[in-house]
């Protein structure tokens, strides 16, 4: 503990430290000799492509993928062409750039995903060098070809190849180059001897780094910082120039006294860096060159690879991995020898407290006197976040917790969150997981990405634990993990459909945001249709099941699911799909089992394809509907012959449907139509299309009594109707004499009250009164009242002694007519 500063080295007025991350789990023979190595930033995986030890035509290179701690994830024999460069995408996919310009993409587990080419011309000219770079647009690739031309793409997911302009007079491989991403533009910076050029989309511009004297020789190596802000150039005279990537300012220049080209040169910075530096690596020397012209030198005892991070440099060697970084200011404050910073005092106080020494109190007092206790706690918490060693983290957090006890209004939020985060980080750094990320990187990556990375590595239980531990809402955390897990699970070829479906449903249950149809789609992609159908059964939203079922050609099932969903649009989608896929007979049969779909299709046919509708009914032997169809059609028809023949078809169908009523009615209709035509032709009566009753009315009003009689007989018009007809038509004509005769022709089936009423309707009181006497006793009061004979009504009412009638009369008597009122009231009273 006391030796925390043991691995610190001063650089200028600050310190650098080298922390050991892992004893590597791998065993590499000969280190990285004859190997292409790619290590992803943010503690990502490492890929090693090793040339065969014995070169023979049959031997192939070996590609290994390791976690950052050296645990083997995948190992395969490279069977494709010669590889120029390896690189990782932001999604942890491995890019292998071949000499012929083909880029092969593998996932973490060495499974081939896809490939693309960097252009046709490269096949001949070959790729000389390639670089993988990251920008806000994603992961990009830049290559320089045998004809010294540059081609790049800024995002391999959305491949657009850009061939950069030619560099005038370039006849050899540029001595060094790199990709810059600035001002939303991607450019290439290259050096040829002592000259430098910037290539962008359209032009090639010569540039001169400010303050770099021409005597310093030609530029043989260059490096840009993680954020593309700073640039470092190394010349063949051993000079190191640093400045802004825009080449506008110079930061420093330093003579390294090394004339060999360094194997790697990487910027080493951190947020709020006091003293950024450039790390250069030679075979057995690691040189940290600060901007203050100060340097640190480390001896290297094994071949290594430098990995630039946002807050340091990882040094990956064959046996161990170290993190080189500037010591964060807060850690310097606390751990610097003889530091009097509040955090340092608090740490000391806590240490004394644990020893049960009263010095603890002295230290505390000292902090409190300066009222710096809050600051002290904060420092301890912040420093803990930056420490890599759990025991150091613990002692700092304990000190913070101790100090917190003496504060009343200190918000515990930062303390709690750092505690949680450290726990998560420590779990990730564990060699078995092998993601050595710092707290700053964690903040930069965000938790979402972190969980995604765990999921890609298939550390599902850990991911779920973390989600639970950090209390991430289910649909953001656990569900996403489960979704990925399930998609992966369905690809396991050694398990039966049944077992997988059970496992998936058991785990996923009804977690929000996990879509079974998504998982099923994955299963289908792997050719496991049965499994996909099993999984779809668990999908609660039938709407989501349908598209996949259609893709799997399970159209029947799709149709019933669509119907279940209650979404008509979906049903219609399936129906129109089926219509095109199936022959007509099968299509109709399918619909027959799905009434909802059938009625939808019928609706459609009614408006669009009436003939199909007929076929549909025919297929179903639905004679009733078929008959209705003919009847409907008959009304759209103008010509009488066609109408009648359509109606005849309807009659046939009605008969088949054993609907004798409708058959009879339709036959009557045909008869009526013929009758009307005959009269229209003979008399020009204009009857076509009228109802039976209207026809009779017209006939009567035209005085065609004989024909009306015929109608009455032929269509068996009920007596009542006939009497009503005659009554109204005679009254309409004002033929009162005929009406009187008619009324006496036989006993009226409708009674005589209608006679009274109809006469009154024509304001013929005289005629009306004639019929009053013939009205049945029950309706007499009404009849009297209808003709306005209150006295007569009163007499009848009193005679019949019915309350309802008496009050009906009373309501009509004018109030001035006292005697009648009294008589009626008496009668009413007498009854009671």
């Amino acid at each position: 503990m006391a030796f925390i500063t043991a691995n610190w080295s001063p650089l200028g007025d600050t310190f650098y430290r080298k922390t050991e991350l892992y004893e590597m789990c791998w065993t590499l023979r000969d280190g990285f000799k004859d190997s292409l190595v790619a290590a992803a930033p943010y503690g990502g995986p490492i890929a090693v492509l090793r040339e065969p030890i014995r070169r023979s035509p049959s031997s192939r290179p070996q590609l290994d993928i390791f976690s950052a701690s050296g645990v083997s994830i995948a190992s395969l024999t490279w069977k494709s062409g010669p590889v120029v460069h390896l690189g990782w995408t932001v999604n942890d996919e491995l890019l292998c750039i071949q000499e012929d310009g083909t880029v092969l993409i593998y996932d973490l587990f060495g499974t081939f995903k896809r490939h693309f080419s960097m252009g046709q011309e490269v096949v001949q000219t070959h790729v000389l060098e390639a670089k993988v770079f990251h920008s806000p647009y994603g992961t990009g690739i830049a290559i320089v070809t045998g004809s010294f031309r540059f081609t790049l793409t800024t995002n391999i997911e959305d491949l657009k190849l850009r061939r950069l302009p030619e560099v005038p007079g370039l006849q050899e491989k540029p001595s060094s180059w790199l990709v810059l991403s600035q001002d939303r533009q991607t450019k290439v910076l290259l050096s040829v001897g002592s000259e430098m050029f910037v290539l962008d989309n359209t032009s090639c511009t010569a540039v001169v780094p400010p303050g770099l004297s021409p005597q310093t020789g030609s530029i043989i190596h260059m490096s840009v910082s993680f954020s593309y802000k700073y640039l470092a150039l190394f010349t063949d005279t051993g000079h190191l120039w640093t400045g802004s990537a825009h080449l506008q300012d110079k930061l420093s220049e330093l003579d390294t006294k090394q004339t060999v080209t360094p194997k790697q040169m990487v910027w080493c910075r951190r947020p709020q860096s006091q003293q950024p530096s450039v790390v250069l690596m030679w075979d057995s020397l690691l040189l940290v060159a600060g901007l203050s012209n100060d340097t640190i030198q480390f001896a290297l005892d094994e071949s290594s690879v430098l990995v630039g991070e946002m807050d340091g440099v990882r040094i990956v060697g064959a046996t161990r991995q170290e993190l080189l970084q500037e010591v964060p200011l807060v850690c310097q404050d606390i751990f610097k020898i003889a530091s009097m910073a509040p955090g340092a005092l608090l740490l000391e106080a806590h240490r004394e407290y644990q020893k049960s020494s009263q010095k603890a109190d002295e230290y505390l007092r000292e902090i409190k006197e300066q009222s710096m206790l809050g600051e002290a706690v904060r420092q301890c918490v912040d420093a803990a976040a930056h420490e890599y060693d759990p025991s150091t983290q613990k002692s700092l957090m304990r000190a913070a917790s101790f100090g917190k006890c003496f504060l009343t209004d200190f918000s515990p939020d930062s303390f709690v969150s750092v505690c949680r985060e450290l726990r998560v980080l420590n779990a990730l750094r564990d060699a078995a997981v092998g993601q050595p990320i710092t707290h700053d990187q964690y903040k930069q990556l965000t938790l979402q990405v972190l969980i995604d990375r765990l999921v890609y590595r298939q550390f599902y239980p850990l991911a779920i634990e973390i989600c639970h531990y950090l209390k991430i809402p289910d649909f953001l955390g656990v569900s996403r993990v489960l979704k990925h897990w399930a998609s992966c699970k369905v690809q396991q070829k050694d398990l039966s459909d049944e077992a997988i479906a059970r496992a998936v449903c058991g785990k996923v249950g009804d977690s929000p945001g996990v879509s079974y149809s998504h998982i099923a789609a994955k299963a289908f992609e792997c050719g496991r249709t049965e499994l996909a159908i099993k999984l779809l059964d668990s999908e609660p939203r039938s709407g989501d099941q349908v598209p996949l079922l259609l893709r799997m050609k399970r159209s029947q099932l799709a149709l019933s699911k669509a119907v279940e969903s209650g979404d008509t649009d979906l049903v219609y989608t399936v129906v129109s799909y089926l219509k095109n896929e199936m022959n007509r007979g099968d299509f109709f049969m399918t619909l027959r089992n799905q009434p909802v779909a059938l009625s939808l299709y019928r609706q459609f046919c009614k408006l669009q394809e009436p003939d199909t509708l007929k076929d549909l009914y025919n297929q179903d032997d639905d004679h009733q509907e078929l008959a209705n169809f003919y009847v409907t059609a008959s009304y759209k028809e103008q010509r009488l012959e066609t109408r009648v023949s359509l109606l005849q078809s309807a009659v046939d169908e009605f008969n088949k449907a054993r609907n004798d009523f409708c058959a009879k009615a339709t036959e009557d209709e045909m008869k009526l139509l013929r009758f009307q035509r005959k009269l229209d032709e003979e008399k020009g009566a204009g009857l076509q299309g009228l109802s039976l009753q209207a026809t009779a009315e017209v006939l009567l009003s035209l005085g065609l009594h004989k024909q009306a009689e015929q109608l009455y007989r032929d269509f068996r018009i009920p007596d009542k109707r006939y009497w009503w007809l005659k009554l109204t038509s005679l009254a309409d004509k004002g033929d009162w004499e005929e009406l009187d005769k008619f009324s006496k022709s036989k006993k009226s089936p409708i009674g005589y009250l209608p006679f009274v009423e109809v006469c009154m309707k024509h304001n013929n009181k005289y005629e009306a009164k004639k019929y009053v006497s013939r009205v049945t006793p029950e309706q007499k009061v009404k009849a009297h009242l209808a003709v306005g004979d209150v006295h007569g009504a009163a007499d009848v009412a009193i005679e019949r002694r019915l309350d309802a009638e008496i009050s009906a009369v009373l309501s009509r008597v004018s109030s001035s007519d006292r005697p009648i009122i009294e008589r009626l009231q008496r009668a009413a009273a007498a009854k009671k």
Partner: protein
Amino acid sequence: MAFSSRTDSPKLPDFSMLKRLVKDHLVYLLEQLPGKKDLFIDADLMSPLDRIANVTTLKEHEVDKLYKVELKAIVSTAQQLCFLIRPRIQTVKWICDVVNADKAAGIERKYKIIFTPQKFYSCECLLEDQGVFGDVSVDEWDFLLLPLDDDVLSMELPEFFTDSFLAGDQRWLKTAANVLRLLHMLYGPFSKVYGIGRCSKMTHELWRETLEEEAELKERRAEIGKVFIIDRDVDFVTPLCSQVVYEGLVDDIFRIKCGCVEFGSDVTSSDKGVKVMLNSQDAVFSEIRNQHFSNVFGFLSQKARNLQTAYDKRRGMDIRQIKAFVSEELKGLKQEHRLLSLHIGASESIMKKKTKQDFQELLKTEHSMLEGFDLRESITYIEEHIIRQVSVVESLRLMCLLSLTENGLQSKDYRSLKTQYLQSYGYEHLLTFSNLKQLGLLTEQQTGDTLTVMENTVGKLVNDRTAGKLSDAFSSLAKKSNFRALSRKLSLVPKCDEEYDLRVPRDMSYIFSGAYVPLSCKLIEQVLRADGWAGLEEVCKLLNGHEFSVTGNPKGDQDEAQRIVLVLFLGGCSFSEISALRFLSKEKGYRFIVVTTAITNSSRLLEALLRNHQ
């Protein structure tokens, strides 16, 4: 008002927000087509649109000319055409024709179709089929609800009824579910949802699904506590009865359209008709709308006398008082005067029309049908009605009412009435009868044998899983009304030992002169009281089942909002039902919000089923 009311009714939520949202959305859509444009509007969208955005608003957003969609060739010189339509195949086909005609004539224009409340896949398919998919842009205006009054919201979708119940088409259920979602989002969370009927059940399920997709509602005080969803085909009797409550009567006679009625010159007693908004803003109307018609006249004359007294105050005032009177009271009095004379005019006109047809006789017949007395007399009455050709729809209404109350007509009557009807109104009504039969509105009583055969086959079908759906969807085919049994179980027809005083209503039956408690409203009352369907098992069986009650958000049970109940009628509701619910709310301290696919009455219901439909 004469109701013995509870005074602690909770306050209704404010629905004006719905209007604002819809209007903003429309303006946004119009702005999507910048520049001058001609707007074609579906005929039945005209009145609802007018309630949302008037012509001035439309002009402000560069609508040049307004046309009604008439499915004819168009005469417009505009560079841009915008169509605001319901998603109907015919209309879309017409637009395709318009576009293709323009293409043939070499006219270049921009076209935009705004479907409301949503587009259907079939419409887009048609556009594609006709080769104009690329020429038109398509949008959706989610105009789901039109607030007709403080407590009435309408979807203005009359075709919901025929599409869902007659054609067996479920396309509108999603829309209904969206209505629930909207109301839940704005005024929820609902603590309890009850419902009955196939459509209700599906609507509810669809809504639950959308609920799961969305993130949790924020903690919020609910403004609507409970929801009751009911299918129209659960109760056909109520909308088929003659309405005798003032608002219902006005609707039956003058037809209220979107909460607005057009009184003819016979009402205004001048040579000009007048359009009047009928809602709670109208002080006179709001007092008589729910009253039995027999009280209205007396009430109005009392009101007139009061008004006279108020006017008479002027006498003996000094200048200062007169000034105050003129500035403060006169305007209100004038307004009241105007409304009063209008409603008196309307009442007179109603009286005239109704006595002419012997309204009392008609009501008596209806009542005996409801009570199940004097079957033969009712049949004779209907026959006479048909023979005298009183009205196509009225005759049909009586036949249906009789069939419903008698659980179908006896074979002999069934045939003879139908024959009579066909002779009077034409044979084309064979198709009408086919529709009525399908809905179970006019049916033949099954003799014992056929019934069991039928039930056996249905039973077999139900056992089979896929076919179970079949019998589900077409259960209406085998549907019986069971009105008699329901009436007994729920005592829908009160015992009429004594005279029913219509001025002091005792129960909801007052809306039908004390002869019948509307089944739909009775169900709502019972379910709310029992907090579910417990004890109503047999009733549900008689109603073909599909009942449900689901507890949602259990929080805040004691809340005021729990007494605010949203009733969603799928397939329409009548003004009488709204009046009955208003009565119930006074009685039990609830507040009801009625949401309906459209306001309906007997004529609208039956006209939709006449043979010409489609």
